[in-house]
């Protein structure tokens, strides 16, 4: 595999929904929300803003940071679990917004783990298609507002989009390896179909995620002979701060090695991992191996290993 990460980008809506506002909606306290999730606030898009709007803004930010023109892209991949149902998916509209005509645009209709799967796909696609832009975009506020949710679930979600530019051209980080897994036997434990409220069996989701995320990370590290303690940053799906801390503990690394911005943005599903990567990269991070990982509805999970060049 010869694939490189050149740049990340992100877009967050302006409107901040604080725990105080959310607490009033669900009949809990702001402190309870923060204690249960580590979330202090999240961003919600305006009613007229679409998943495509969020995705296009993150795409443009990433292209600007990567100093690449949209017309040079060979493919775009758009991951979203909250795009409106039906066809076509958001990828075609995002491609059109970027001015692309004839460039393949692939939808990954996968919540939470979509960006990770997109990244792994892109690492293989660049050899044939050239520069590939991976975007994760979610308007989870629409899911929250579609129907009354369980209190434990309603407080978690935020809107946003993240993006990554992957290329066969040498760049800042080389993608070394990817592991992807799916197991449909628990698919009903986290599901949403727009006709009824999002269903989440939190006990099952946390039990599975707290074991499968460290297992996938260990799998990709072991087969590349890299110790978890040598990884400079773990860039994970930002589901819940308590889960991120648990993953760090399972890997035997200090919690600060697992990047966390869930306090400010909440759980933005498939957008979260690339939003985290974008913020982390903007902070002029230390050299060394980095690991992306995610777990989400399906269940789908996995990890991607890269290192600075």
């Amino acid at each position, binding site marked *: 595999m010869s694939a490189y990460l050149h740049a990340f980008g992100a877009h967050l809506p302006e409107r901040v929904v604080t725990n105080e506002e959310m607490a009033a909606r669900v009949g809990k306290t702001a402190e309870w929300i923060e204690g249960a999730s580590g979330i202090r606030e999240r961003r919600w898009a305006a009613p007229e803003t679409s998943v495509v709007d969020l995705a296009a803004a993150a795409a443009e930010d990433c292209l600007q940071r990567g100093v690449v023109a949209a017309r040079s892209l060979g493919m775009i991949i758009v991951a979203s679990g909250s795009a409106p149902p039906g066809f076509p998916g958001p990828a075609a509209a995002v491609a059109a917004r970027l001015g692309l005509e004839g460039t393949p645009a692939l939808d990954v209709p996968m919540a939470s783990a979509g960006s990770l799967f997109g990244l792994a796909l892109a690492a293989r696609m660049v050899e044939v298609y050239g520069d590939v832009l991976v975007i994760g975009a979610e308007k989870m506020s629409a899911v929250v507002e579609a129907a009354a949710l369980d209190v434990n679930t309603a407080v978690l979600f935020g809107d946003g989009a993240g993006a990554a530019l992957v290329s066969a051209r040498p760049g800042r980080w080389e993608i070394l390896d990817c592991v992807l897994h799916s*197991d449909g036997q*628990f698919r009903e434990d986290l599901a949403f179909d727009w006709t009824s409220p999002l269903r989440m069996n939190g*006990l099952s989701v946390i*039990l599975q995620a*707290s*074991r499968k995320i460290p297992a996938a990370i260990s799998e990709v590290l072991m087969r590349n002979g890299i110790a978890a303690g040598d990884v400079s940053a773990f860039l994970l799906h930002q589901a819940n701060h*308590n889960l991120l801390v*648990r993953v760090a503990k399972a890997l035997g690394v200090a919690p600060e090695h697992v990047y966390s911005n869930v306090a400010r943005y909440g759980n933005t599903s498939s957008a979260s991992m690339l939003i985290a990567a974008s913020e982390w990269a903007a902070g002029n991070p230390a050299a060394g191996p980095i690991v992306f990982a995610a777990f989400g509805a399906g269940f789908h999970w996995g990890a991607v290993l890269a290192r600075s060049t």
Partner: protein
Amino acid sequence: MSEATRRERLVGVLKKVTNQPLPGDEESLFESGLLDSFALPDLVSALEAEFSIQVPDRDLNPRKFDSIARIEAYLNEHVQ
């Protein structure tokens, strides 16, 4: 391992994980508030360590660990 020993060790694990008095055998550990979504993985890991077993992914179903009776039944089936 006798069933009595297994039960004694199970009770020890549960007390260590929950740090609270245990409910009746059939009572839900989740509904009683003894276990939440983050304590459940701790319980499963502690059971694996105590009984030298590996709970496979297909058995990572909260219902299997919802009460002392259910956990005991699982252990009776999987621990020699």
